[in-house]
């Protein structure tokens, strides 16, 4: 099922918890799947003793991947036209992230209606870890 333009209006929001109590293991799982084995994300000794961080932390692209699920679950599979993210804060093991998409515009295109969404993902403290935008093709 894909989202239809007639079912939404500017200002509507859609929100979901996209990860609850992020585990170090999931960060490692993402490293293995993505191929990004930067020890900042996977090696506690390196991240703390060498790089000086409080612990390992998630790849920005893991946060973006978690956030993308909110959008594809809402607009439908294969409907995204663009997705952009700015990584604003680090995401640490144990974090719980909530992503929210807000309808900014709905415009007609030659290929049907297109929605522009603003996206933000916050941690359990309410601090924003990701901000972004997305566009998607809608049903009429």
């Amino acid at each position, binding site marked *: 099922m894909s989202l239809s333009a007639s079912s939404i209006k500017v200002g509507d929001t859609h929100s979901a918890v996209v990860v609850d109590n992020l585990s170090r293991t*999931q960060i490692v799982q993402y490293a293995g799947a993505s191929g990004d084995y930067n020890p900042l994300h996977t090696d506690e000794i390196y991240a703390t003793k060498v790089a000086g961080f409080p612990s390992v932390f998630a790849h920005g692209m893991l946060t973006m991947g978690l956030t*993308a699920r909110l959008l594809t679950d809402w607009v439908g599979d294969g409907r995204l036209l663009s997705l952009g993210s700015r990584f604003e804060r680090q995401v640490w093991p144990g974090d719980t992230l909530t992503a929210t998409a807000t309808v900014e515009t709905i415009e007609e295109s030659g290929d049907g209606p297109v929605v522009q969404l603003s996206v933000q993902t916050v941690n359990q403290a309410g601090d924003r870890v990701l901000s972004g935008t997305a566009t998607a093709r809608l049903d009429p």
Partner: protein
Amino acid sequence: MADYPFPVEAGHILLFARSVGDPNPIYADAAYAAGTEVGGIIAPPTFVQASAQFNPDYPLRPRIGAPWFGSGREPTGLVPPAPSSSGGSSSGGGRGGGGVGLHAEQHFEYHRPVRPGDVLTPTTAPGKSWERTGRSGLLQFSESVTEYRDANGELVVTARSVGVLTTRPAPQDDAKGEGQ
């Protein structure tokens, strides 16, 4: 960086979807996917980042027989590779020059869904670079744009990546707002 083929495989899509916590059967169940609008398994929106797996020059993957800057029992003391603009795959290279290389922004434009069986060729070109002073000192930003084209030369995904190199390590949360 030389071009390299990025073969898109169903098993890789399954593992990637699991790693981003997405149970959508469109990424795993061919029979389900056949009955949907897209007509078959597709890749999740951020999947092309996993082209790093196939990039022979990707600096953030241990090489067989080569020293690796991550720790064993203790830190190795090896210097991480300098962040490269090996686009579609940069999360920063570590601590070149005493700073930390981090991923600041990522943008994708989708021209069609990525599907198992596609053999994509990523081609990366450097973009703009700029500097500003942040909470932890001088920040050097650099952009790269990667085009993923299919075997027919058609554009499938365009990716724009922005990396940031800090000039000194972030002791606590100082890198906040400066990428990751």
